[in-house]
């Protein structure tokens, strides 16, 4: 569903992403671990076609994101670290607006159903987003993915700053999305969440994918040790 082939990005002579090869299938949660500046966000930005790769290819649903930017964007939902919505609109209105951009017109009942499915309290659905916590805004993002039946979810540090309960809620939502058949790429610093939620874990350092692990095959402490080893190298 999501694939990068020798994906590379240089900025002013510096290599931000170096020869990255990833394949994430439907129903898989791939957690990309790495320190700040490791190249996680750059990878996601290239998948969003925010800027083109210096070399290699990023593909979603078998299509190159640079050659078919609008088609590939129809199949994905992106949730950044701080999901910014229009503060003077309600959660439901924000959902309707962003769904409308992909040509999806939701009824009121559908909006409420999707937002509830994403875990938003019914009482919050018609409140202005300016009153929402970060966790509530993330849930609107997930509702957007549910409403659009997105094949791909790109998440950039989605649990950073969330309290443990909210982070746990979010992890369950990701499980839910995985069960719906979405391919999830989550960039994170959170080793615990990566181990608990991820199907596979990739470790990036200085733009390079250093290691790939099956989450089920490694303990929390081993993951931490492997991660630290790669950061030192």
């Amino acid at each position, binding site marked *: 569903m999501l694939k990068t082939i020798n994906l590379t990005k240089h900025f002013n002579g510096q290599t931000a992403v170096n020869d990255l090869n990833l394949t994430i299938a439907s129903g898989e949660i791939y957690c990309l671990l790495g320190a700040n500046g490791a190249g996680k966000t750059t990878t996601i930005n290239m998948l969003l076609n925010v800027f083109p790769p210096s070399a290699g290819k990023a593909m979603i649903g078998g299509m190159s994101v640079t050659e078919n930017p609008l*088609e590939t*964007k129809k199949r994905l939902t992106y949730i*950044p670290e*701080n999901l*910014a*919505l229009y*503060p003077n609109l309600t959660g439901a209105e924000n959902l309707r607006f*962003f769904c409308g*951009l*992909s040509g999806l017109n939701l009824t009121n009942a559908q909006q409420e159903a999707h937002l509830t499915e994403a875990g938003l309290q019914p009482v919050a659905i018609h409140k202005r987003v300016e009153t929402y916590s970060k966790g509530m805004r993330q849930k609107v993002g997930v509702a957007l993915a549910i409403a659009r039946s997105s094949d791909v979810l790109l998440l950039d540090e989605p649990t950073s700053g969330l309290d443990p309960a909210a982070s746990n809620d979010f992890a369950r939502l990701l499980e839910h999305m995985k069960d719906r058949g979405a391919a999830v790429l989550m960039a994170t610093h959170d080793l615990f969440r990566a181990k608990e939620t991820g199907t596979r874990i990739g470790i990036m350092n200085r733009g390079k994918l250093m290691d790939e692990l099956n989450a089920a095959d490694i303990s929390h402490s081993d993951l931490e040790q492997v991660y630290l080893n790669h950061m030192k190298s």
Partner: protein
Amino acid sequence: MITHLFRFEWMQLWKSWSFRISAVIIPFLIAYSVYLGHNRVADQHQHVQVLQDLEETFYAEMAERLRLIERGEYEVGAWFQDPANPIVLAQFGDAGRHVILHPKPLAALAAGQSDLFPYYGKVTLTNRVAMRDNAFENPVMQVTGQFDFAFVLVWLIPLFVIVLGYDVLSREKESGTYALLQSQPISIANVLLLKTLFRFLVISGIVIGSLLLFGAMFGVPLFNFGGLQVVLVVLLYIAFWFSLCVLINLYSDRSAVNAIILAGLWVFFVLILPALITLYAGKQHPVPSRAMWVTEQRAIEQSVNRQRDVLFESWKADHPEEVVEGDTPIFYQAWLQRLLTNEMIQERIDEAADRFNTPRNAQAGLINRLRLLSPPMYLQHWFQQTAGTDSDRLQTLDEQMRAFQQEWQAHFIPRFRQLDFFTSEEIQQIPRFE
């Protein structure tokens, strides 16, 4: 997609206080300016009507008195009471005609130079006096100038455009929604273009809607070709300021910086550039002071008056066929000489006026060309022209008064020189200013 974006942009705008306040203030400002313009024009119409009524009454009374004299029912005590006398009919008391620049249909939209230049004047045989009906002016009004629609549009509407457009892109970037928009299956350029277009349409709709509504309420004829031109110009002007907003947003991601730059551009286009253009034109084509011109006119009058006896005798010798010789009424020689002296003074003043008018016209021509650099300055002038309150039109009053005075003099002076008095029937046919 357009409907979807417009609908949500409207929801966003409607929930923002800056828009709500603008949506109330703009119609209020336009209503107030059109109301003041309507009053100003109504006052002019009323004043003109009073003048024309006075004129009609005066000549009706003269004709009536002359009919009584012709029937032998009335006898005049002195020559200056005789309504058959050309001098009495053309010069004395309320005699003479008013030359009037009637307000144009859209005069209510721009006061222009009408608070500086007179719009009517009185013409007699020897005088041309341009006048205004607001000699007793509130000094505060003189300082602040007239509040009209042109002022609201040229000066104030750009501020509202800036308030609603300074952050059209930067706000998305600052709040983070830009990142989310970038991930949507629609061109970000299209989204921003449509958002800006919608804001442009909303502001234009409020301005044009208010203008048409309050114009209709206060009798300003806007549902015609002239009105269509005004609407197009309003659209272009608002589009100019929105274009600046978009341009600045493309180069700067910070709303506060954008607001400061746009406010600076407003100051530059509305205040600084017009001042620089005026300064430059004044430097290129300096116009002599008005005091010098008045002094020169007085010098000419004194010079002619010193020689008037010699000039008069010389003229009479050259034009014996134009005067009556022998026993003439007491006023004849004195008025003959006064009219001739006046004619000579006028000729010399006209010659001297060229020295003052040439640089003034050159200065005006240069300003007209440079005006294109500043859309606000150009638009202000366009509105004045459309409203008929620009200095060029108002300055034609003097030419029109001069032309009419020549007609007036040609009608009366030859008959006076021949002592050919008027009948009551002929009073009805004395020239009128059309």
